[in-house]
């Protein structure tokens, strides 16, 4: 299979999950699109390095995590604060599932950088073993982190959902 075909296959399979990871990280659709593109450009440029030690999914998610983590370099790029007017505006309109999801992405982007990525993968139902491989965090440490982040995210979401 040539690189082009293989890449297209990988993009079709993983772009959706990576987009959600980026959405959770930035809380912003336009920035998430940029990060998604940046990730797949890195994937394209580094495909020759893939040795098959892990699955393509693990490898691509790791590239995405690295791309996201090294992205926020200045204050102007930091995600917008989740302000009450924004939340109020969401509730002024019909409370659709889409708006709830947008609120969820915004709430995730309020967490610490590494936490955003970890919880996005948990929400995606990635096995802990794979998340540990992607992030290079020991499974035990990861379990502790996930427990804390789950609690934190649920609290943030419910706080803003009540507004």
């Amino acid at each position, binding site marked *: 299979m040539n*690189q*082009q075909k293989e*890449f*297209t296959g990988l*993009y*079709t399979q993983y*772009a*959706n999950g990576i*987009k*959600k990871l980026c*959405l959770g990280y930035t809380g912003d*659709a336009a920035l*998430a*699109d*940029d*990060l*998604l*593109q*940046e990730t*797949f*450009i*890195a994937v*394209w*440029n*580094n495909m020759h*390095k893939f040795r098959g030690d892990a699955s393509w999914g693990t*490898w691509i998610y*790791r*590239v995405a995590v*690295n*791309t996201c*983590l*090294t*992205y*926020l*370099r*200045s204050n102007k790029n930091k995600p917008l604060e989740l302000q009450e007017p924004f939340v109020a505006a969401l509730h002024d309109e019909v409370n659709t*599932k889409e708006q709830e*999801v947008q609120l*969820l992405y915004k709430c995730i982007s309020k967490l*610490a*950088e*590494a936490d955003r990525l970890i919880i996005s993968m*948990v*929400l*995606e*139902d990635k096995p802990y073993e794979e998340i540990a491989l992607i*992030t*290079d*965090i020991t499974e035990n*440490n990861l379990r*502790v*982190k996930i427990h*804390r982040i*789950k609690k934190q*995210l*649920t609290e943030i*979401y*419910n706080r803003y*959902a009540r507004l």
Partner: protein
Amino acid sequence: MQDFDSLKNMWQEDEPPTQSTTAPAIGRTTLNTKRKLQRQLLFAMISLLLTALAIAGMALFGDFNFQHWYSYGAMVLMCLICLAQSGVIFFTYKKISAIDETTTPGKHLQQWESYYSLRKRQNAIIGPLYFLLLNVALGIYFIEIFTGRPLTNILIILFIYCAWMLFAYFYLGKKNQRREAEKLQGIIDELKGIENQLTSNR
């Protein structure tokens, strides 16, 4: 009141639109941190190489008829300084090219940290050295240019030149250097912070 599983369902039901794509078509993005830096470095390196070539060309074919060898020596020195600076930029370019997006996040962050530390050291040491050497070369070059000119003209030109250089170095340069150092330190601290998030036990 939503529990975590409801949030998970909400997340999994969402299908955000993604563009369908073929490999090289996904080209233009506004971020490109690594590639943007590489492009800037490549541009600076080529500019310096062209400057060195232009100076060498002038020294060889410029028909200046200098009486003293040190005037040509000054041109050679300028040429070498430009080449050395482009060598430094090439080293920086290689350093940034070696950053591996496929390695573990901890190592990846460390590679960026090391790149920004290098930039910080370069700004503090190589920047002023480049400025100093270039001015020494220009100073030597001016010796013959000024020979035989009226003293008043020499003094006026020297005054303007020195005033501008001192202003450029001690005011503009220092201000820019401080701002750059703060920016780089900010980035390094931020990377360290993220690294801590990954390694901490909570």
